[in-house]
């Protein structure tokens, strides 16, 4: 059995799965339930000077009958008093000494930061997460993403926190920024112990076409919200990997953004995360989803021979590079398995209208009765000499393993754009002809 426990910048957790700062981490009651269900840690809903929330706070993107593919909120930080929050953190820590409890903080002045950092340590929190990402409400008051979007300001505030803290400090980064790596570097320069990302993305999920008001509507008016859930995973993975690969950042990463199961978790770990934070999936299904996360991740690590989460973390970081280093001489083409083909012809029309016009509909005679249920119906056939190997047909094909992308041996050596430009500059070759 692989060791799922982690030591994240000094914060110990029995597994890498933490409840992210948000509605599920609002109270001691929820924390007890989360830990009973099997979560390893909890990042408390952001504590600050109490705010007042609106009624009507969430909205969602549904897709093809699937609910909550994306999720949006205009809820602010905790509306409970700091006293209540710190008291409940202590209560949770007393009951769950071996689990990670992290206080998420958001205040304004240096003095207030000092005060809240100290109170966090006093109540027994294992660490602090600085909320520099909340994209609505708080930023208008000079906090949240207003801080995270300005690396200099972020650096200053992290500096204030580091002056006062005795426990590890995680800086939570906003994705609403041109390049998240600059914010991560600022956190590093200021002495932060770790970073977590991504916070939510500015969003409007949809417009009610009867009222012409976006949801969540608050008496006829809505507000830009923060977007999260399964749909943001690719964006989060991209940013996590960017930070993990940057030699100047070099900090432990807590991955956040659309994690809902062990596969998502494994991908975030592979791209450089060490702990994982989950909110939307819990808001959809409850704390019980962690059972399969733990089991699935453990089985996966075992099946691949990894001894621990730390052992696995970052395993895929180096599999990404800049485009200029990719091999221009690599070639793959689509192959259709006619025993599996059901004759929907989605590959044909996708290639024909949406890609590179290298699938034909041809007489089915050489394929026996042909695929699908209509004998004699024309079958899709890839013109391999014209196939650019774009993958589109294999992506749209509804049948598993029906269209596979097969590597073709070109016999030519690795040759990147970078190599090309170098050799061109040296006059070693002529420019390649443009695609017809």
């Amino acid at each position: 059995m692989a060791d799922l426990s982690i030591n994240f910048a000094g914060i110990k957790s029995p597994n890498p799965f933490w409840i992210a700062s948000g509605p599920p981490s609002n109270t001691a009651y929820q924390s007890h339930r989360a830990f009973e269900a099997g979560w390893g840690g909890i990042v408390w809903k952001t504590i600050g000077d109490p705010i007042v929330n609106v009624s009507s706070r969430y909205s969602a993107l549904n897709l093809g009958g699937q609910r909550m593919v994306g999720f949006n909120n205009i809820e602010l930080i905790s509306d409970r008093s700091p006293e209540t929050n710190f008291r409940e953190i202590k209560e949770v820590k007393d009951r769950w000494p071996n689990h990670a409890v992290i206080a998420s903080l958001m205040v304004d002045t240096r003095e207030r930061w000092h005060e809240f950092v100290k109170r966090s340590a006093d109540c027994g929190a294992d660490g602090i997460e600085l909320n520099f990402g909340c994209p609505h409400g708080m930023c208008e008051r000079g906090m949240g993403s207003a801080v995270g979007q300005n690396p200099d300001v972020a650096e200053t505030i992290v500096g204030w926190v580091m002056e006062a803290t005795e426990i590890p400090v995680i800086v939570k980064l906003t994705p609403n920024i041109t390049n998240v790596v600059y914010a991560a570097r600022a956190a590093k320069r200021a002495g932060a112990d770790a970073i977590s990302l991504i916070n939510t993305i500015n969003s409007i999920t949809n417009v009610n076409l009867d009222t012409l008001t976006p949801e969540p509507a608050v008496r006829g008016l809505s507000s830009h919200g923060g977007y999260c859930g399964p749909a943001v995973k690719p964006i989060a993975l991209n940013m996590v990997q960017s930070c993990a690969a940057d030699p100047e950042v070099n900090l432990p990463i807590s991955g956040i953004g659309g994690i809902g199961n062990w596969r998502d978790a494994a991908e975030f770990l592979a791209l450089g995360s060490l702990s994982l934070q989950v909110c939307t999936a819990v808001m959809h299904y409850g704390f019980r989803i962690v059972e399969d996360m733990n089991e699935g991740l453990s089985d996966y690590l075992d099946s691949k021979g990894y001894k621990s989460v730390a052992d696995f973390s970052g395993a895929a970081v180096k599999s990404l590079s800049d485009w200029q280093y990719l091999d221009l001489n690599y070639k793959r083409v689509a192959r259709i398995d006619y025993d599996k083909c059901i004759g929907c012809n989605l590959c044909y029309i996708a290639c024909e209208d949406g890609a590179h016009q290298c699938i034909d509909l041809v007489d089915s005679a050489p394929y026996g009765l042909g695929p699908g249920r209509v004998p004699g119906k024309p079958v899709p056939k890839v013109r391999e000499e014209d196939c650019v190997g774009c993958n589109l047909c294999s992506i749209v094909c509804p049948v598993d393993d029906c269209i596979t992308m097969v590597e073709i041996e070109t016999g030519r050596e690795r040759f990147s754009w970078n190599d090309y430009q170098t050799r061109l500059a040296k006059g070693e070759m002529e420019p390649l002809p443009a695609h017809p």
Partner: protein
Amino acid sequence: MPIQPLLDAETAARNMAEKQPRYSPQEALIEANRCLFCFDAPCIMACPTGIDIPSFIKKIANENPTGSARTILTANVLGASCARVCPTEVLCEGACVVLDLEGDPVKIGRLQRYATDYVFDHHIDVLHAPAKKNGKRVAILGAGPAGLGCAAELAQLGYEVTVFDKKKEGGGLNTYGIAYYKMPPQISLDEVKMIERLGVKFHYGVEIGQDLTMAELEKNYDAIFLALGLGGANRLGIPGEDLLEVVDALEFIEWIHTKPLHEVPVGRRVAVLGCGNTAIDAVSQAKRLGADLATIIYRRGADDMPAYGFEYELAKNDGATFHFHTIPTEVLAENGHVKALRLAKTETREGKVQIIPGSEWTEEFDLVLKAVGQEKQSRAFEKLFPGLKLDRKGRVEHNPETMATSVPKLFVGGDCANGGREVVNAVAEGKKAARGINALLTKQKVTGPVQPSRHGTKDGALGSGFNHPIRVPELLAAMNS
């Protein structure tokens, strides 16, 4: 004893309710999202009216039920009734690729019902006739599915169309002859009203040849479409056949559609002779209306029955019983009413059914329904239209592309042309005839709209069921060969 109604109104209504409830919007959305939106989809090839099925389902998935109904009704004006009565298992759903993928096809019929119900419920007309007519007049004889298919298409092409029917209301077998639990008659009547709103005139209670002479028709109309269907039930040729309680199964079904359900007389013990789909409709409805026993009597075996397998299963689930390899030899009476059937076992020798000598027995029945096929109206047609050519089976000969007959300006469609097929075939033939008439009168060819699910083919549309429909038995035969 004369037969009488057996159930109270509430029980009868419950037993005869539509067998599948309507999809809720969410159910429709989930089912619509199962559709892969195939390019050149097999379901279209299997639909005799060539409905662009992937497009109408996509529109349901996109929460555009009006557009969905427009796609359906443009191709098949009786899309609402076909959604309920089509044998989708051997047509669109039988060809669906999701059947291969998941073992369960997209429920095309129920989705079609969802979309068409939506526009009927909301009183949205998706079809329109041009305000300016082209000055041509067409008479349509018969207000059944073929006549309606032809009338709607002609009206949309700018013709002045008049439909004549001997019944009190339009719709033909759709109104009078469909199992009630598949479709209540109101659906068909709503379709007739929709076609009326296209400007088509209907004259009911008209017996062609008596109330309306051929001379009048020829004088007043530029073309005539013949869609009078089939005649009454075939004769059994056995003693006692003319007793009061020996009834044409279609007539029994018509009672169900013209009387309140709790006033339909039913026998306690009902025999249905024959084992086609009409026999199934009759036996199931007899059982649902309270018969203690409802039995199919069929001279051949279960493997030979013309009824679809899923219809057979339905009848068994309704509690119907089956006497295979059995033939009636006499209807026995008591006090002038049906008392029993004299039955005999049969065997098939060299393809011919023969009575096994000495196998006869008597079984009590008080209602006998004949579902042994309908007569052709050959003689009536020959009298009405001198020179009209009929084929060996009594069907009106016609050009399959234009539906033109051997008589100038006379076109034909539906059961009298095809010998008795599905509603959807009749609608398609009516539509083809309308285009044939249009080609004759205007020298212009009309083709269907290009299906959006096919846009982009270099070689044009590959196959629409409107031209060459395929059926599951044909698919299976080809696959097994």
